[in-house]
């Protein structure tokens, strides 16, 4: 209760500061629109269904891309952590590729998938996968070896050890890596929606992009707020439960 109050007051203060800046007319109102006009944009976009529609489209893409990124990245990260040869090949590749901006993947995506959801997905996955691999790799390599040793003497072998011991033992890292992966996925998707135009669905990235194209900063800021909001929601729903489970079990973070 008290916590939400702090948060509420903080964001109310931010909003107030914004209003003050707007009224002081320090910046061109085109670039820094009033909170009211952003609110109006959001309200209208909600009413005519644009916002819900594109949010839905974007969330579908995001989830799919993210889930694929995680589902492939976590096991691959465990492989790179476990096997020298994998680390020297895939691990090195991941290190190199994670710095590439999403736009680099666009030509390849179009080449392989044409202008389809597949291309979009490819860009998102490429933007997420490598960082998830690296975070998992880090996590696994930081696992206290005593856990693995204990498990092995109890007869735990390969897959069982990975799933039942190494995974949970590196969970704090993996969750932290998954949070970052989420951010990577978002950003890649925004880029993908800007660079890969497809006809099956108009997402938040496109709204953001066209807002910018049309110099409609109320739209740009409105969509930014939506992205921020979804980010917070995702944290509450996807990551917070894991984190509090971890902290309760491990006895960390009182």
């Amino acid at each position, binding site marked *: 209760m008290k916590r939400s109050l702090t948060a509420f007051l903080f964001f109310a203060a931010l909003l107030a500061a914004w209003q003050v800046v707007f009224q002081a007319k320090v910046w061109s109102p085109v670039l820094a629109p009033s909170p009211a006009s952003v609110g109006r944009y959001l309200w209208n976009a909600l009413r005519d269904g644009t916002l819900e529609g594109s949010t839905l489209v974007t969330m579908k893409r995001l989830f799919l891309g993210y889930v694929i990124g995680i589902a492939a990245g976590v096991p691959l990260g465990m492989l790179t952590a476990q096997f020298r040869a994998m680390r020297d090949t895939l691990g090195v590749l991941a290190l190199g590729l994670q710095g590439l901006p999403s736009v680099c993947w666009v030509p390849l995506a179009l080449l392989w998938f044409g202008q389809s959801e597949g291309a979009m997905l490819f860009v998102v996955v490429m933007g997420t996968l490598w960082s998830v691999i690296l975070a998992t790799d880090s996590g696994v390599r930081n696992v206290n070896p005593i856990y693995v040793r204990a498990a092995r003497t109890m007869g735990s072998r390969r897959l069982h050890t990975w799933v039942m011991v190494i995974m949970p033992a590196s969970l704090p890292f993996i969750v932290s890596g998954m949070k970052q992966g989420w951010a990577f996925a978002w950003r890649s998707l925004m880029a993908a929606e800007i660079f890969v135009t497809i006809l099956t669905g108009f997402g938040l990235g496109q709204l953001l992009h066209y807002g910018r*194209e049309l110099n409609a900063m109320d739209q740009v800021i409105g969509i930014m707020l939506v992205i921020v909001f979804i980010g917070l929601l995702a944290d509450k729903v996807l990551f917070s439960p894991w984190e509090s489970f971890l902290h309760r079990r491990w006895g960390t973070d009182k």
Partner: protein
Amino acid sequence: EKIVLRVGYFPNVTHAQGIIGSQTTREGRGWFEERLGGDVTVQWFAFNAGPSAMEAIFAGSVDLTYVGPNPALNAYIRSGGDEIRVLAGAAEGGAALVVPADGRIKAPADFRGRKVATPQFGNTQDVAARAWLKKQGFKITQGGGDVFVVPTANPDQLALFSSGQIDAVWTVEPWVSRLEQEAGGKVFLEQPEVVTTLLVSSVRLLKQHPDLARKFRAAHVELTAWINAHGAEARAIVCSGLGADMHRPFPPGLVESAWRRMHFTADLKPEQIAGVVKDAQGVGFLPNAIPLDRMFSGEP
């Protein structure tokens, strides 16, 4: 004390005046500096696209810029007519509808069910494409209709067109030439009279240094005339300017063939812009347009 004039343009053949201005500045014989007087320095900014240029105008970090009519219109309307003015025209033509050379598409009716790419959602060519297709009696919606209009970045168009994943492209030079030369395209339709580039100024500049804006415009008009008189020389400067901007040699042949499809004029034809507005509104863009009179007034 020196006054700094900050001018934007895109490294694109259709912005020849900007490229020549920046290239001559780079070479130390600045066309505009020579005509603006010794106390003025010109800084040239090569923007990636219209929105960036317009953001810079709004943020007060450039004073003048070459830009396409649609971003200029958007910026004018968005600011309620308060922040930018069009000073002069710069280039016309250069846009075309390209279809495969194999004769798949011979008549407007053949576009039914096809995919037509445009450079950007809501940009000049996109609006033109939608308006033209509508005029041919097709039903166009955002995600479908009788013909699929697919906004696709220029470089990707080339790839998708050559691999047959899109059937036609409505775009602007130098991409029209590249589609012809590299991807087996054939020009189906041209609109030589359509404005491609304008010279716009921020209202702030007009307020603070009206004389400077006037002098810059005059220099621009003079440069346009010079370009029309000295085609080969102008093309050479444009070619080396593009190379310098992009840090990669630009093929002279491309400038050559693009040039043929455009012409440079400093004349302002407000009725052309009004036509653009009408087209845009006809296909559902620019819902709350305002009177354009102040846009061409040249006054703050």
